[in-house]
């Protein structure tokens, strides 16, 4: 399967601050790709590099197999983009916006634009300055889709939306991407948004991808255990096997219990039960905890994980 997006060891620095520190990932044609990361992890910068707005300082970046260079607008013409904040001209109406934007996209589909506006319930002649945040995001999505893009890039489009608007917007994204089969690069820090739509994800932290792949294996490879503090024997767990085959993402005391979250590095096929089989000397007090995707995400990018990574 051909790659629509390829980041290979992409580096971007602002002064002494490394925002992208060897980011590598690839997005295949037709897939919905979740780009997860905390605020400040480098997601928006990665997208600016991807769009050719900001040049990378190192590594290689390809979109549609074409090397992205700053100012290369041929790539941008094939991308539909929904920004985190909608800085549209407040004096424009959707009709005026279409008149303006269509000049930049040879593939602009006016009938689709009208159809999407109607479907999204956007008044054609109302000034954008009077639109709510949710309406503006829908308008941006309609605009991105009306360009008949080969790649849809969504940069945290639901930031600042209330839960209802957010849900509505995500439904629209899901519906439209399924309908069009367009490759989608969905950046967010909200894992539940991704859970619903993404085929594959990358989790970015500190400017590099710490996980890339499907969602299910990620959850499967992350295990959690807890024990009441009075039952814990210091040094008895995780033990030699775990030290060799797992990365401890979190080792913290919460609510009178010591909690451990571990990531199975070298044995992607291991299941929880199998893992348990490798812990024969577990004290009876240890119990397995089921983790949500959000728990996994927090464990992967949270402060404990970073402390562990620093220590290692």
């Amino acid at each position: 399967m051909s790659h629509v997006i390829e980041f290979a060891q992409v580096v971007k620095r602002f002064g002494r601050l490394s925002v992208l520190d060897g980011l590598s990932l690839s997005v295949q044609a037709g897939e919905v790709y979740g780009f997860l990361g905390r605020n400040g992890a480098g997601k928006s910068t990665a997208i600016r590099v991807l769009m050719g707005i900001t040049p990378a300082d190192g590594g290689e970046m390809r979109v549609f197999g074409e090397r992205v260079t700053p100012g290369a607008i041929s790539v941008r013409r094939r991308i539909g983009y929904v920004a985190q904040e909608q800085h549209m001209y407040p004096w424009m109406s959707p009709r005026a916006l279409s008149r303006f934007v269509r000049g930049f996209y040879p593939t602009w589909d006016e009938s689709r634009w009208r159809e999407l506006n109607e479907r999204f319930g956007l008044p054609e002649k109302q000034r954008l300055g009077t639109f709510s945040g949710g309406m503006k995001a829908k308008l941006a999505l309609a605009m991105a889709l009306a360009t008949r893009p080969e790649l849809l890039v969504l940069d945290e489009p639901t930031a600042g939306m209330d839960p209802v608007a957010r849900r509505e917007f995500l439904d629209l994204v899901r519906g439209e991407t399924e309908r069009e089969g367009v490759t989608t690069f969905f950046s967010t820090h909200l894992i539940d948004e991704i859970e619903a739509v993404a085929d594959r994800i990358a989790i970015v932290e500190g400017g590099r991808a710490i996980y890339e792949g499907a969602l299910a294996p990620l959850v499967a490879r992350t295990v959690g255990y807890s024990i009441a503090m009075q039952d814990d024997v210091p040094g008895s767990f995780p033990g030699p096997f775990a030290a060799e085959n797992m990365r401890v993402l979190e080792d913290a005391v919460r609510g009178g219990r010591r909690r451990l979250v571990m990531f199975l590095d070298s044995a992607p096929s291991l299941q929880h039960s199998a893992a348990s089989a490798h812990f024969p000397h577990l004290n009876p007090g240890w119990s397995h905890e089921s983790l949500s995707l959000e728990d996994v995400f927090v464990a992967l990018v949270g402060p404990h994980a970073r402390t562990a990574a620093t220590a290692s």
Partner: protein
Amino acid sequence: MATKALIGKDLREHGAAAIGLLVASLVMVALAIAQNRSAAFSMSPFEVVRFALITFVPLIVLTLGNRLIVREYLSGTRLFVEALPVGSMRPLLVKYGLGAAFLSLLAATLLAACVLGSSAADDVTPQWLGQLLLKTLVVMCLYWSIVFCFSLCGHLRIVLYLVTLGIVAMIAWMPAIDATRFAPFRLLDRDLFVFERDVVPVADMLWTLALAAAFLVTGFLIARLGNGSVADRLARPMTRRDFVVLGVLLIAGSGLAGVIAENRTREPIRFGNTSVLRVPEPAIEMYFASELYRERSEAFLASVQTAVEPMQARLGIDALPIVRLALRPTRERHDIDYGTLDGVYVAGNWLENDSYDDAVLVAVVLHGLLTARTTGRAPFEPHHWVLDGFTRWWAETLGEPQALQTSHRDELLTRAVFVASRLDDDADLVTGWQGIADNFGYPSAEALAFSAVLYIAETQGVEAVYDLGRAFLAEPVAASVLGSFSDRSRPAWQRFTTATGLTRDDFTRDWAAWLAQRSRDPGVAGRLALIPALDPVFEVDSSDAAQPAIVAGYTPRRGRVVSEVHEEAVCVFRYGSLSAFDYEYEVGDEDKRETRCVADEAAHVLSGRHGSGDRVYVALEFESPDFHQALRLGSQRLVIP
């Protein structure tokens, strides 16, 4: 397509505002042209373009920058455009181009309005108009490039504008800096900008364009720096630190302005304690150079004092500036220095004066006093004839008509009649007065103005003259905007009619008729017969292209017989080089040639002094012991082909 979309967007967003600015500019220009028309001889309507360039055009350019660029950056809509498939510089280039196009339209509109407001006297030619348009466009290009650059500096632009304003003020006002020596200031020179017709200031325009290019390039660099992150940072709301920096700069600027103002303060003229006479009220100081001249100087001081005191009382002037008179024993009688910067300063030689010469000098002192008193308003056109006529009349009469000596009256009226006889029948002696002064010299123009005031005194009574003086010569320029508007609401002729009881038409017609009658007064007719019946002729002989010659001479005046010209009388040819622009020119004593007053069309031939393209002021005068001052027969401005 993308460029078209960007242009279309900006036109939709700013089109209405642009039209509004254009209309507002036209209104301003129309008002300025109307004002210009009411002020005879003071301006060409095209000076309105320069006026616009130094007053409201910078404000229009600021508005343009604010709408086209600042707004885009401060509101963040730039980020929306940035994500569109368009080169990062193209939106800015489009904006710069649109701004330049609008300013070009504005320049063309301004000039078109001025052309409509011009008359045949302005001699509008395509070449000259093209030169004006070019200069206007270059100046506008500089303004727009500066604003374009600063607009990309976000909130910092306010500081930059203040600093720029401070620098411009420093250059314009610092006595040590001659701003007219370098571009772009020289391009906007008060005289050259409008009146230069022949020389295209290519170097000044190129320097100005280079400066504009520097600002433009800096602007684009700022926009590109850190992939636009610098411009974005500058566009964010000002922090406390920014405010502190702004405050420090403002304080520094105020300090600098104070230093400049201090440097501009000039030490006033002060006389020492030796060879100086002093009168406390009205304050007069006189430097008489040597004890040898004390007695004559005391007499002249008394005559000045005698003239000033009653005038102050009659005009109801509460305070007058100090008068300083300096004797220059080596000078000619009518070689007078005159200044009104701090009080009134007059330097001349009164040692050999008779009463007529004294009256000339006293009139100069009164002229200075009323000019200083009214902060320059009294000599302002179209009131200058009132000032000249009133001060001479007062110097001759001290406000009492019976004090006027017959010989003085006859000589002055002879001059006035002589000038009037040399003008066309339909010439307006009042509105054309300044032109008469230029053509026939100030002594004759002053005599003409004197005759007007004498006519008012004799027909309307002396109180009418006092009222005229109070209406035109006693009140300083209004100190506030409201005061100025109040002044404007009372046109000059309305004030004239209120003071004298004469309407404009009645006055100009009846005065001219009265003056014609005076030519039959024996004293005047006798003096007129002492003037040679000659008309001046001027010609440029360019048969020798290498050495063109100016030929001046005299032809017999039709309808008059040659009369008894004094045997010591001479006819004098005076000349002086003119710059590229026209204003009143007083030819000096340095360049002159004398001859007997006989009809000879080539009495004076001046060759080898001027080259092709030079402009020369030439005048023929009559000097005779019968007249205290030279009588100018005529003058002309010649262009050597």
